[in-house]
């Protein structure tokens, strides 16, 4: 029935062409338009790479990415090793805590740490009250703070990929090295780590790409000289200054090119060095070691330290959410539920919008994602690999690129952006790859002979899908659904460019609230609410099965 498959493929391609290829091409063409001149040219790009300021932002971003990658790797290797190799009690709880940042909204961290580590934040006030310091220490308002916050946020990616790599190494590789006379450390450096490289790269790419799309954190810390922040300011603020707008677009395009190049490079490198081998049937744990008590204590302390930092985020936000006028005090003094009252009663639109947009995006995601997964895994339709490739490539695009391209593409010509439907559409486009990865992985686990047996019994393809495939896929699909929802729910980089009055989502509300300098407790309460909702959804996933997540976490995951 490949006619049906071809039809399906064409439909999907149409959707992709409309929602991805078209906007992105508009983005690129717009970047070539020069202000005060008819027609186009490369002037903007020339100016970008000649202007001291823009060059500075470019290199700052590269520097930030490198620093964040280094820090996460340094702190991540011991964590991954502990999680993958040591038999310790309480490992699951620590693992969950350390991985928490993946599902916290990205901006939650910076808000919480500003409160806690700011000039007159909890930490400084406590230290000054104790007489340990005379003047406040600048913990976070600087490059170092930026690195710290972004590294903490991306740490789980490195830890997950490294520990996946460590557990999947065939133990006999290390045993052979041991028999050959190599001590523990030498073994680790010459055999274990190199064999983890493909897995590590998957996480490393996502970590490196993050600063190219994180426009908000630098802004909040008062450090605007980074590509995504400059792009945001130029486009969203100075929309009357056409020239600046174009420069902002150029910044977005340059970011995208860097991201895509690195993404493709990493994929290519991983493919080239496929480290497969035979296996006698090892335990799923890989090699598990019982560490000495000194190392055990050390690891507990280390995990505790990281987990404490992570826990600070929801705790501090929670404190701020339930209080008001928390300034110049180490801890809140005036407790109230007022913040929540404001959100739920006076501006319930935020929550409503967030849910409605995310649910619509989700439905679109499932309707598109399941057939796409089917097409890619089960058929040989012409163009299916290209489809897979483009959708995966979408992961590499900074969120701002999608937001800006939609803004440009759907304003004139096809005025979609004048209707609120643009919000869920944008969310759908940005988060689709996540659902597809998970659907893809689930499909791979479904033995094709189960479907073939159904067809041989006389049942058509669609019925087979509904009666056989779907019930067996449902676990993975549900996990994908929840993950998609969480990520759409927290999305800000794309939505921030497209919203108009009345369409604000919770994340946008948080940003606006902070930006207008209003009672901070409200922002905190919104963030806290988001964390609670996310947490509940995560518990649902945990019930259904996290094994699918491991399968889908191949090359190319992230925000």
């Amino acid at each position: 029935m490949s006619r049906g498959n071809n039809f399906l493929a064409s439909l999907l391609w149409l959707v992709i062409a409309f929602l991805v290829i078209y906007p992105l091409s508009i983005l690129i063409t717009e970047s070539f338009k020069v202000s005060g001149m008819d027609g186009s040219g490369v002037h903007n790009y020339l100016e970008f790479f000649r202007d001291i300021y823009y060059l500075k932002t470019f290199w700052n971003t590269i520097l930030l990415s490198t620093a964040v990658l280094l820090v996460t790797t340094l702190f991540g290797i011991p964590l991954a090793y502990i999680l993958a190799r040591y038999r310790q009690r309480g490992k699951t709880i620590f693992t969950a805590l350390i991985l928490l940042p993946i599902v916290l909204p990205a901006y939650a961290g910076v808000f919480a740490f500003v409160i806690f580590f700011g000039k007159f934040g909890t930490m400084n006030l406590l230290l000054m009250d104790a007489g340990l310091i005379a003047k406040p220490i600048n913990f976070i308002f600087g490059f170092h703070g930026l690195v710290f916050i972004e590294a903490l946020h991306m740490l789980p990616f490195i830890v997950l990929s490294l520990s996946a790599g460590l557990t999947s190494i065939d133990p006999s590789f290390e045993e052979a090295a041991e028999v050959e006379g190599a001590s523990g450390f030498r073994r680790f450096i010459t055999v274990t780590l190199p064999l983890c490289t493909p897995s590590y790269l998957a996480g490393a790419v996502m970590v490196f790409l993050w600063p190219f799309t994180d426009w908000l954190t630098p802004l909040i810390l008062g450090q605007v000289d980074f590509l995504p922040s400059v792009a945001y300011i130029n486009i969203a603020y100075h929309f009357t200054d056409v020239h600046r707008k174009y420069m902002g677009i150029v910044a977005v395009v340059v970011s995208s090119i860097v991201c895509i190049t690195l993404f493709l490079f990493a994929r290519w490198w991983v493919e080239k060095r496929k480290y497969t081998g035979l296996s006698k049937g090892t335990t799923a744990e890989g090699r598990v070691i019982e560490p000495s008590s000194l190392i055990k204590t050390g690891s507990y302390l280390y995990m505790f330290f990281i987990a404490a930092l992570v826990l600070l985020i929801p705790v501090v936000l929670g404190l701020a959410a339930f209080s008001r006028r928390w300034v110049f005090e180490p801890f809140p003094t005036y407790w109230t539920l007022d913040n929540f009252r404001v959100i739920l009663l006076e501006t319930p639109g935020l929550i409503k919008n967030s849910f409605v947009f995310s649910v619509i995006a989700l439905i679109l995601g499932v309707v598109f994602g399941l057939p796409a997964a089917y097409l890619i895994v089960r058929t040989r339709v012409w163009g299916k690999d290209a489809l897979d490739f483009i959708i995966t490539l979408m992961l590499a695009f900074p969120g701002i690129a999608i937001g800006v391209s939609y803004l440009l593409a759907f304003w004139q010509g096809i005025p979609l952006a004048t209707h609120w439907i643009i919000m869920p559409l944008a969310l759908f486009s940005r988060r689709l790859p996540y659902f597809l990865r998970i659907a893809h992985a689930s499909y791979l686990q479904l033995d094709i002979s189960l479907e073939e047996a159904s067809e041989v019994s006389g049942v058509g393809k669609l019925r087979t899908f509904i009666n056989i495939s779907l019930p067996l896929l449902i676990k993975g699909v549900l996990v994908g659904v929840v993950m998609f929802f969480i990520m759409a729910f927290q999305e800000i980089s794309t939505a921030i460019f497209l919203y108009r009055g009345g369409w604000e989502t919770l994340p946008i509300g948080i940003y606006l609230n902070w930006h207008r300098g209003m009672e901070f407790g409200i922002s905190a309460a919104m963030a806290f609410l988001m964390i609670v909702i996310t947490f509940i959804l995560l518990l649902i996933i945990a019930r259904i099965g996290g094994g699918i997540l491991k399968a889908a976490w191949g090359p190319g995951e992230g925000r």
Partner: protein
Amino acid sequence: MAFIEIRNLFKRYKKVTAVNRIQLEVKEGELLTLLGPSGCGKTTTLRCVAGLERPEEGDIIIDGKPMISEGFVQPSKRGIGMMFQNYAVWPHMKVYSNIVYGLKLQKISRQGIREKAKEVLELVGLQGLEDRYPGQLSGGQQQRVALARALIRNPKVLLLDEPLSNLDAKLREKMRFEIKSLVKRMGITSVYVTHDQAEAMVISDRIVVMEKGNIVQIGSPHEIYEKPANRFVADFIGAMNFIPGEVAQVLPGADEVYVRTEFGERLLCRSIGPDAMTPGQKVYASVRPEDVEVFPEAPQTGENIFKGTIVHKAYLGNFLFLFVSINGAMIRVQAPYQLPQEEGQELYLSLHPQKCMVLPE
């Protein structure tokens, strides 16, 4: 003087006993095989010798030095070479680096290492391939890399954990001989683990048959085949017919026994020891298919002559495999390929008493 001594080795995984207090001695220069079905403890025993497992009790003594009782000696310090079932050839290093990995840790000059590598590459037949990556080699070549890596340090002991089971049959046969001749030439004491009894027969000086964590029999391939200690060994090595019956009469001299079976008349069998000797005792008369002689007509002389009907005749090229029914009881027979009788026809079988063993139940 035993080169490797395994003393009272006891290893348990949670509730399951993997190795149940075995004693074993490996002579210097000998190639000893641990043979048995999955789960019998052979691999665990080998890994204890290597130091990759820590037994709950017992000691391993290599060349006079205890590896456990006077402080646990790490695998890296035991001076052994090891071959793994999945080769364990490191995919991120070239063949050359794989082979010299352990050698680099000894104090030898770069030139010395290069020479040794050249030597051992020729020994295993991989000259010219030292710059390739394992991913570019076939399974057989990868296994040779593993062998070269194990041999280059001139280990005192070589441990082989089912190294050939991932290769195809023809290659397996060839590699068996190569490994054996190399190891014998270099005089290395070797312990080999396999579940393939044909492989064990070909390669070993002595075989240790194991079942469920215990040693069942130790002997040369000939001894194990001709004089199995019990039903398990008899069944595991080669093919065997087991004809259930009872001891009818023990002949003076206690060397021969009459056994009453479903075949009708009594079967004259060879006893293998005092265990199967009481009249009335339930036993198995055991005879290998190749030891059953086939006659188109009743032979004039001989013991244990039976008439049977061919139920199934399978042509295997160089011989036939027959399923013959004698009074309803089935026996498998290996017959010469020129047998004229077809399925459903009758023929005569002769079971030579010396080839019929009585085994206790």
